[in-house]
């Protein structure tokens, strides 16, 4: 070993640390943010935009839950209700879930984790944020003009021939937003291929990177298909072209095929990055090497590939041939295999580990439980017979919220709590954050578990009123949603608070391994003083060297001398 580096490095008490030059204090003023090419600043910009859209989507969710508090449709007209749940879906899917983890945490961490100075195309990265907001403007325009009532799926011929709402504006918003996803995905793939630090081989990549690689593949292959599909819908409305128009002999089911060819893989765009976050959290707080690293890595790729072969399970009752439906059913169940590999491997990592129940770990444990429930019900509804029974009921709603909210959002919040000290350089209050994690978990289950039962009893989706016997479960669900809401609002406050009053985090508050913890918090604009050279496997929590590093007794990495 390099003995000159082993002199204990005395750290001053954290509060006395002065801020090193970092990406936050390097320049102030609006221009330095709006014209930045630093992936870390762009991540912050995305974080703000995504939070705004999350709040908007949540507002629509609130309206839905309020309407469903009573069996009568007393809060709004059925037509208004259609618009509200559509806007909830459009905003949450396209403007929150899809960009949430990749565009914020991914943007911030991908270059840091692989030891690069930035993403491969910094200008494209900034452009993607602007494009995202441009798409958002179109969608907001649609919302404030009166909304759209087709459901987030834009099914033809309703969307093309009959809907009297702002379909074109929304469709253009989604179309434009697709470009921002593509820019991000393309940037990640090139960065991961070409920008890795010396010694950062493919099997030394953190699993967060593997899952973002798989996500990017889906984005690049899938998003263009929905772009052209939605463009055809817009052209049909705007210019009277007739691609899906049944009056001309067009096939509305063809639209469903094209739509779900993207939109089913899009589910994996939302969940895979969250899985990457969970792999990091589990290893860091179990202080163990992740069990079956290669299996977890390849499971991400397997999910990405299989995800493209299962879209037909959204169309079991749309007049598909029985043979097609059977094949789609079998393929859909196959997705459970790599998903289960991940869950089992996380569990195996936890086995006999010394687990510390920090806030991020609470989210991670919540994710594993909720994702398992969401995944298992997914296998249920991949079964043809059961799907015919529960199709278009609240069972489906509960299932995908277990994946989207219980999975993707838990992952996002967990990741945010884990990397916040790196992002902001500050620690947040432990008790409040644990409380909010608990509220989110309890509130979530109270909201969505009753919906499984409701759906199985036969309550259909997308209705603004229901028979009185369903009321108890609906009241439970609304009550849960209000708890969930408080759980989501709390972090907004204590994260903002921590920016000014939080204790300085130091470079590695969790004692975690990974290149991102080897640089200062917040990191400098160039990420690393010199490009690091990687000599270890990821999640190497057992070796003596790592032990010394993570207990902060030594200057961490061995830097390559330029």
């Amino acid at each position, binding site marked *: 070993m390099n003995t000159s580096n082993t002199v204990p490095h005395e750290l001053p008490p954290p509060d006395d640390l002065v801020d090193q030059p970092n990406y936050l204090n390097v320049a102030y003023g609006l221009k330095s943010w709006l014209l930045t090419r630093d992936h870390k600043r762009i991540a912050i910009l995305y974080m703000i935009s995504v939070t705004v859209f999350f709040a908007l989507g949540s507002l629509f969710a609130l309206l839905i839950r309020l309407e469903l508090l009573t069996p009568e449709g007393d809060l709004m007209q059925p037509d208004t209700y259609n618009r509200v749940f559509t806007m909830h879906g459009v905003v949450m899917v396209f403007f929150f879930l899809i960009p949430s983890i990749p565009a914020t945490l991914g943007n911030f961490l991908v270059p840091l984790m692989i030891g690069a100075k930035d993403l491969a195309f910094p200008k494209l990265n900034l452009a993607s944020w602007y494009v995202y907001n441009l798409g958002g403007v179109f969608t907001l325009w649609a919302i404030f003009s009166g909304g759209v009532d087709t459901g987030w799926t834009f099914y033809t011929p309703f969307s093309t021939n009959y809907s009297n709402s702002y379909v074109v504006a929304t469709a253009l918003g989604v179309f434009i937003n697709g470009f921002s996803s593509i820019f991000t995905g*393309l940037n990640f793939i090139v960065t991961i291929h070409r920008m890795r630090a010396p010694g950062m081989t493919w099997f030394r990549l953190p699993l967060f990177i593997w899952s973002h690689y798989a996500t990017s593949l889906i984005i690049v292959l899938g998003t263009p298909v929905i772009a052209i599909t939605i463009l055809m819908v817009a052209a049909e409305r705007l210019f009277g072209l007739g691609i899906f128009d049944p009056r001309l002999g067009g096939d509305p089911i063809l639209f469903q095929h094209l739509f779900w060819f993207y939109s089913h893989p899009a589910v994996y765009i939302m969940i895979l990055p969250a899985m990457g976050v969970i792999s990091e959290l589990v290893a860091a707080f179990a202080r163990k090497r992740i069990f079956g690293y290669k299996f977890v890595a390849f499971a991400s790729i397997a999910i990405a590939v299989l995800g493209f072969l299962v879209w037909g399970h959204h169309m079991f009752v749309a007049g598909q041939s029985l043979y097609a439906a059977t094949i789609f059913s079998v393929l859909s169940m196959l997705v459970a295999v790599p998903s289960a590999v991940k869950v089992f491997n996380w569990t195996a990592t936890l086995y006999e580990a010394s687990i510390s129940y920090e806030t991020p770990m609470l989210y991670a444990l919540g994710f594993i439980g909720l994702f398992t429930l969401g995944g298992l019900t997914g296998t249920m509804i991949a079964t043809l017979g059961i799907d015919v029974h529960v199709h278009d009921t609240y069972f489906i709603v509960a299932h995908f919220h277990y994946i989207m909210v219980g999975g993707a959002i838990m992952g996002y919040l967990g990741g945010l709590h884990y990397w916040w000290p790196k992002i902001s350089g500050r620690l947040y209050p432990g008790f409040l954050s644990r409380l909010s994690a608990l509220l989110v978990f309890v509130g979530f289950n109270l909201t969505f578990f009753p919906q499984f039962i409701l759906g199985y009893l036969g309550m259909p989706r997308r209705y603004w009123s229901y028979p009185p016997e369903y009321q108890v479960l609906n009241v439970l669900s609304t009550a849960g949603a209000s708890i969930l809401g408080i759980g989501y609002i709390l972090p907004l406050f204590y994260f903002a608070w921590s920016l000014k009053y939080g204790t300085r985090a130091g470079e590695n508050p969790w004692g975690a391994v990974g290149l991102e913890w080897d640089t200062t918090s917040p990191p400098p604009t160039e990420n690393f003083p010199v490009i690091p050279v990687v000599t270890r496997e990821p999640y190497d929590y057992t070796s003596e060297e790592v032990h010394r590093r993570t207990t902060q007794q030594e200057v961490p990495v061995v830097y390559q001398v330029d």
Partner: protein
Amino acid sequence: MSTRSIEPAAVALAPGTGGGHDHPSLQHHFDNLEQQKEASTLGMWLFLVTEIMFFGGLFTTYVVYRSSWPREFMAASSTLDWKLGAFNTAVLILSSLTMALAIWAAQVNRRKQVVFYLIATMILGLVFLGVKAVEYADKFEHHHVPGPNFVWSEDAHGEGGHAAAAPTPEQAAFAHHVEIFFSLYFIMTGLHAVHMICGIGVLAFLLVPSWKGRYNSAYHNPLECTGLYWHFVDIVWIFLFPLLYLLGAHAT
């Protein structure tokens, strides 16, 4: 202890091992020109993958309807002027040649020729768009544009105006399917034309740096990436031409 060995692949990326360390065109976050070139080329290919998927959705739609109504598609196709289509195909292939020559000229440091070939490529692109405009005008004249004014009469191929007796249900259905062909025709050729216009815009953007001699044997990456894009747009047309224009050859 770990042996701190560095993989050969990693060495290539390490600073100080590649050429062009302080080249003016090297962006700050790349170690050397070679890494920058590899990154942008890979990025361009990935972008082309998204384009393939984008047009792929259209081709899928085409295949579905073409196999449903082969007769209608042939009849509609026979109204297109295959000679104009063939002429445009030749124009585009020629423009791909001039594009490739522009890159070659940069590689051998012939600055003026780079500019010449770029302008030639742009002119050929504009010729293509001009011919396309003539064809579109013809569609409007014959009421072959889908929508409320669409007219299809099997004898006169939609000469319009002289609406005879009410069409039989079979004739009406036939006309509707023809309308779907023309919907696809306009979306496919229209999006292709949009890609052409973008390509011409990018070429125009490259003219000034080319004139200043920024692209040479050491650095000509933007030209190469634009070339990849241009060839891709060309290839899309090479698929569109037979699918849309030559189908009608079987009709008579």
